[in-house]
Structure formats: C-alpha cells, structure tokens
C-alpha cells in the first residue's frame, strides 16, 4: 500500500525550498495480463510500478516535476526540478489550490477494492481467458479465427497531500475479461469484441457469456452492404451511445468553456438537448470505475446534475477553471501524477428512459442501428460530427441486414436537441455509460 507520508514529506520539502504552496500525487500498482489465442497461452505479463508528481506554487507561478524514484534522493530531485520550473513560469492571477473549506473526502465505503482480485491464481486467469475464447470459437462454424482473449487484473493505490493540510489515500482493484473473435463468410472477414470489467472478480460476467456475446456480434456483421447516401433516424446502441456521452463531457469541460473552445460555451441555463436528456456526473456510486473519495486536488467527489431534462445546469470544474469562471469547483480535478490538474469525470452517464431497445427498434420503422464508430471526426469547438460507422439497417421495424463502410454526420448541437428517445437499460462498462438512444435525423454517407 502506497505511503501517503512520502507525499506529505515532499510537500514539506517544497515549502522549505521556498514554495508558497505545493501538492503531491503518488500512484502505484501491480498489473497482470494473460492473453490466449486459438486455445493456446500467448502472453503472460506481470509487474509493478510507482510514480510521484509534485506541483509547486511560487506566489502565482506554477512548476511541476515527476519521478518513478521514490527514494529520498529521487523525491529531492523532483522538488528541485519543480521549484526551478516555477521560476520560468508567468504570474497567473488564477493559479492556486482549492480553498481550505473545499478540501475533504467522501465519507462512506465506495467499494473500490476487493481482496478477491489480488488472490486469483495465474492458472485460473489463463483458464478464464481460454474458456471465454472457446465459447466464441464454438458458437458457430463461421467463427474461424480469433485475435485472442485476455484476462487482466490490476491492484493499485493513489495518495495525495497538499500544503493546506490535506492528506488522503485509497486503493482500487479491477479485473476484466475480453474476447475478439473473427468470423468469415464468402471470403470476407469481420471481427468484433465483448468484454466484462469489474472491481471484484465476483462482479465479472461468466466467461462463456463473454465469449458468446463476442461471437454473436462478429457474426451479425457478416455479409454487410454499403448504404446509399440518405438522411434517416439513427439508433445508437449502448456501446456507441456511450461515445456521445463522452462528447457531452468534453463540451461541458470547464477548461474548454473558459477558452470558448466548446459549442456549448455561453449556453448555461439554456436548453442544450431534448427533454429526454438528463446527464449526471456521480463520483460516489459504490463499486463503479469513475468513483473515488476525492478528486486529484483533494476535493470530495459528489453527484452533479449536468443536464436536467435538456437544460444545461452546470460545467464540470476543477479549482482553476472555477476561479477563471467565477464559480466553485465541482470536484472534477484530474491528472496522471504530474502537472496542473485537468478536468475529468466521475461516473458520467445519461439517465435511462422508459422504452426497451426492442420497442425502440420496432417503433423506428426504417433507419440505421449503429454498433461501431471509428475515427476522430468530432470537433467540440464547432460541434461538427462525422465518423465512420458500421451497424444494422432497420426496415419495417426489424433488423434487415448489416451495413459497413459508411459515415454518419451531423452537428452536435442539433444532434443533442434531436434525441427523440432514450432506452431503459443502463449498464456501466467503464466510467461513462448510456442507454440506447435515437437521433431523429442524421446524414448517412455511402454509395
């Protein structure tokens, strides 16, 4: 378990060297990864690492250093480096730490740690990966190959201390199981994947289920066609809807707001999405991946409603962006270990609506159901959205055939106000999540 005292000592040393304020982050962890392919063990990886980062303020000038050497000498060099760098920075009237009364920690068991992860035997983890892959390979004779399956586990800790007296630490554990089968038909191949991720081994989906779903996804892509260019309703399944929720996060990120680098800048209090849309950031849900007792500036995690029935209620802020915008931090500071804090999210999700995915598909009549998005064609400054897509064509309220090598495009401000339906099932596979959703009309480009 990481020793928060190292951070406390680094902060004290920084003050001795003339810093007016300082904050130190420590992180350590042990990773294990077993990867199998075509029923054979392929890779075993096992190792531990640690790192420290220090940010100092000399008045309103900030400098940072980091190191993986946590000995007294390593920490001393990091302190010297940060102090030297503060010397070349410019006075920034907004540089600082959170106010003393903003510091603290969420009180309650967030269930971020489970003993069962650290106690799993290597052999067992290999067998789980083999079982998941075998379930995919056995699912259908068209599953002819595999990019493999892996079982990964992680146990680690984070600690933080600053010169205002905050010192805290917590441990996290996680494990995951994933499979990527390859299906073939008429000389064309398609791959897809499925995975399960949990804080405890007990929370993982059964290996056979992970493999079966991966195979099902790869199989349903076979025989795909390219669509003619058209404007139609688009259904995002949860896995792709989640990426839209990620774009909403980027658009309410306080760092982008004060630079006017988001299409939502200046829209606080206004309708930014349809009435179906309520978006919440909650860093306090036990057992989830976006949960933590405090953020990376020592401010308690909390629940924040970002968009309520379509109305933009707040930005997500760290203390810097908050001072810059004349607001209060929302406890969303994030960083690796080094440098100024950026802004991150806790569990960031779209609240479920009342229709099952099946009802949604039936109700849509004709349109596109998107199962995969690739590429980086999203501009948060302008809201321009254009990405590569694959999915299923819906005709008469039913899946008709798979489609690929198409793009979907629109403008995020109109896409958000154009969300006509939100599904009823919400599942977390990471720190962002969304039920299925429907956007009334987008441009699909193809033949």
């Amino acid at each position, binding site marked *: 378990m990481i020793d928060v005292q190292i951070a406390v000592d680094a902060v004290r040393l920084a003050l001795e060297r003339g810093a007016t304020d300082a904050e130190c982050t420590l992180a350590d962890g042990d990773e294990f990864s077993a990867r199998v392919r075509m029923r054979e063990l392929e890779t075993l990886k096992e190792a531990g690492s640690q790192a420290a980062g220090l940010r100092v303020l000399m008045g309103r000038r900030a400098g940072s250093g980091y190191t*993986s050497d946590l000995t007294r000498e390593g920490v001393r060099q990091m302190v010297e480096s940060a102090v030297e760098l503060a010397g070349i920075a410019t006075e920034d009237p907004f540089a600082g730490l959170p106010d003393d009364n903003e510091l603290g920690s969420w009180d309650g068991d967030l269930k971020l740690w489970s003993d069962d992860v650290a106690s799993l035997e290597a052999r067992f983890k290999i067998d789980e990966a083999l079982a998941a892959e075998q379930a995919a390979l056995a699912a259908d004779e068209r599953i002819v190959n*595999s990019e493999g399956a892996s079982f990964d586990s992680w146990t680690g800790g984070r600690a933080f201390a600053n010169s205002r007296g905050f010192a805290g630490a917590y441990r996290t554990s996680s494990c995951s199981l994933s499979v990527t089968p390859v299906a073939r038909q008429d000389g064309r191949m398609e791959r897809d994947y499925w995975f399960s991720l949990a804080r405890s081994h007990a929370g993982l989906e059964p290996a056979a289920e992970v493999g079966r779903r991966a195979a099902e996804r790869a199989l349903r*892509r076979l025989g795909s066609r390219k669509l003619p260019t058209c404007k139609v309703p688009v259904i995002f399944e949860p896995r792709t809807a989640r990426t839209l929720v990620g774009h909403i996060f980027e658009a309410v990120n306080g760092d982008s707001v004060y630079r006017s*680098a988001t299409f939502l800048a200046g829209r606080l209090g206004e309708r930014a999405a349809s009435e179906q849309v309520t978006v919440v950031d909650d860093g306090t849900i036990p057992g989830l991946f976006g949960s933590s007792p405090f953020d990376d500036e020592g401010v308690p995690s909390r629940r924040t409603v970002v968009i309520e029935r379509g109305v933009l209620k707040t930005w997500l802020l760290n203390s810097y962006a908050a001072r810059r915008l004349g607001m209060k931090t929302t406890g969303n500071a994030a960083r690796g270990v080094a440098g100024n804090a950026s802004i991150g999210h806790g569990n960031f999700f779209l609240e479920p609506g009342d229709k099952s995915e099946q009802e949604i598909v039936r109700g849509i009549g004709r349109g596109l159901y998107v199962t*995969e998005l690739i590429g980086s064609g999203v501009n948060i*400054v*302008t809201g321009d959205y254009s990405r590569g897509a694959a999915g299923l064509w819906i005709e008469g309220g039913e899946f008709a055939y798979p489609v690929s090598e198409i793009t979907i495009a629109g403008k995020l401000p109109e896409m958000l106000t154009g969300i006509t339906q939100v599904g009823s099932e919400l599942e977390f596979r990471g720190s962002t999540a969304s039920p299925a959703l429907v956007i009334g009309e987008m*441009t699909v*480009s193809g*033949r």
Partner: protein
Amino acid sequence: MALSESLFARKFGITAHDLENWLGEALHSGGDYADLYFEYVENSSISIDESIIKSAVRGVSLGVGVRVVSGERTGYAYSDDLSAEKIRHACRVAAAIASGPAKVDKTGLSEGPKRSVYPLLDGSFTLQDRVALVERADRAARAWDHRVFQVQASFVDNVRHVLIATSDGAMTHDVQPLSRLGVRVLARENGGRPQSGYAGGGGRIPLEAFTGDRSPETWAAEAARQAITQLEAVDAPAGEMTVVLGPGWPGILLHEAVGHGLEADFNRKGVSAFSGRIGQKVASELCTVVDNGTIQNRRGSLNVDDEGVPTQENVLIENGVLRGYLADKLSGRLLNAASTGSGRRENYQNIPMPRMTNTFMLSGESDPADIIRSVPRGLYCANFGGGQVDITSGNFVFAASESYLIEDGRLTRPVRGATLIGNGPEALKYVSMVGNDLRLDEGIGICGKEGQSVPVGVGIPTMKIDRMTVGGTAA
C-alpha cells in the same frame, strides 16, 4: 560508443557481465529467446495559454523490461527499480512462461555497427530558450489576424536512452532525441462561432533547429491561417466522389489504408484483410509505398528498433503489387522471415510489436496543378486530423480538417471537417494520378496500437483517388 560510456553504465554501474547473467536468469527455465530493454527518459514540457506560461513540467521515467519467448509464448515483466535484485526478480517472473532445462547461454554479447540518423544533444538549449519558443508562437499567432482570440502553444522534448541486450548475442545502446512544437488557435468573426486551427512539427533534431521553416512564427501563421479559412467554410458534401489529397500529412491515408494491415503480427495470425495477399495487386500501378526508418532527423526514424535490430527501408507496395510485411523478431520467425527492423514499443512497460516508422508513397509524374484541373467535381483535402482502421474488414477512416470543393478543375469554397471512409485493399486501386511532389509531414504523428503510442512519420505526393466516400452533411 562503448557500453561503458552509456548512461546505464555510468549512472547504474551496469556491465556486460551483468547483462549476460540476467539473460541467463531469464532463460533458466528454458525458452528460445530472451531480451532486456533498459530505458531512461528525460522529459520536458512547457506550454503557454492565454499568453501565460501556465504549465512547466520536467521529469524522468526509467525502468527495464524483461522478455522470454518460448515457441509462440511470451513472458514479460518489468521493474522501475534498476537494482540487481529487482532486475533478477523480473527475469524470474518473465521466465515462468517457459518450462524445461535452462538454456545454455552462448558466447557473450557483442555490439554491432550502428548508423547515426539523429544528433546527440549537448544540453545547451535552456528552459528559457524553450519558453521563448512558445512565447514567440503566441505573439505571432495573435499578430497574424485580429480574429485570432485564443492561442495555446506547447514545446515538448525528451531524450530517451536505451540499452538492449539479447540472448542471440546482440547488445546495443542508443540515445534518441525527440521534440515537437505545436500551436493551436481559435478565431472568430464578430463574436460568432469560433473555428480552430492546429499546426506544428519537429523531429529528432537539434533543439536549435526550430528556425526558418520550423520556426514558431511559421507554425503560428499556419495554425491561424487554417482557423481563419474555416470561418468561411460551407457544409461538407456527402457521398462518393473524386478526392484529391494534398502532399505531406494526408499520407496518413497510407498509414491507415495499408500500413497497419501489413504489420506481421496480424498477418501471421491471418486476421488482416491483407493476409495471404503478397504478390497480389492491391493498388493501381502508380502506387509504390515504403516504410523507411533510416531517414535523417525524422520523427519516425530510429538507429535501431526496440529489439536492437537496425531499421531499414521496407517496400510494402511496388507498382501496385503487395511486396512485404513489417515484422518484429517474433512475427518474423513465425512467418519464416527476418525482422524488418520494425519491432517497437511505447516504453519499458510494454512488449514490442511490429510498427511503422516513416510510411510514404513515392512521387509519380503528374504536375499537381494538372491533377486538380482534371477534376470536374470533387474534394481537395489539404490537412487531416487522425485516422483509424479495422484491419480485419479493412475499413479505414481519416478526418479531413481542411478541405475545399473542386469545381470545374479549380479549388473553390473551403468545407467543414468531414470523415472519409474506404476499404484498405480496394481504395488504392482507384488512384489515377500521382504527383511529382512527394512531401513528408512536419513531424507531429503519433500512432496508437493496442494501447501503445509511438512517434511516426507519413508522407505522400498529391494524389487523385477516383472514388471515395466523403462523410459530410450536405446530401
């Protein structure tokens, strides 16, 4: 440079004898091959935002990765502590992949000849010099046009020391400098919707080389020009049309359309759309594509790859015919071929895999102006954001960030950002003209694969593709 002159000998007292012992430890349960990869990276990052130097970070990361290969199996462990005890422990953990009698080590390690495709930095470029670069970029972007209202510039540089020792008897060490200056600009007209522009570059160059074509003023002006141009942009078209790619960075098309699909790990597993297609025609005869890690000072270049193998020029496609894959040691051996010097890793915590270095298409014979003149209606793409590929289906995308409509053989209006999509083994068959103006990119490329990022370069001459799907909104 002898081992004794390397940082690992001077700072950590590592000797050839130590390396041999540790390799022996790694192979104590058998296995076909083992290697040790020591890495020490000094990193510095300075950035200006709202004309304030808000962030200045310096740090060191170091460690050793130990790999043991037994048949198709790989065992891997690493340590960020370079004490003999921790290194031995990592060797034993990695060895758990193998089971059998100890492999007897052979005659010891020897250093091979090595070229030198980048300079040794002397440390004379100070923090203040770095600050001056980003301050100049900030001033130049703001001075370029009154509509520029936000400027962020950053200068990131690092020096990566590596020492690689392998059980096949090779030992090599290298000092790899890398730097990059980037400028991001927002512009708006009368309080309207902002548009953004980005430009930057660098490479494995002396830090004093950020002058002239590489000056902060050059990239600041380019970023500002892009943002201002976008203020006039109309909606991008949707559907299939003729696309002309401008020279340089649009070479990312090759990286996505063919480069990844030719990495030998995917091909030995038979999961790439290019698997088993060597000798087949996968592009028009006008296309010759190479990957070359030996070009002086380029961002993607290396003296030796991260398995200690000298980099080389690899011909991927020659006059439209698929010629070869990019292999690391493991995938090379399993395909009965040699490594092509393409084994790369993000850092000591990661297992190397086949990766690209600098990937580009050779010049053709057409005048770029004639290429544009030949298009009655289409899209000209001057700049790109990122791209991505599904190597199994072969479908790839890249995001055009600066493009123009071509109408009656002339560039007319700028259009908003749009994604282009195609299929790797098919797309280049529609290349009908290749310009005589090959240009490599400015040195900003980062390639991601299975969670590992490495610096790469791309390049292309002006190129016309008769048919490609453009993902705009104007149907």
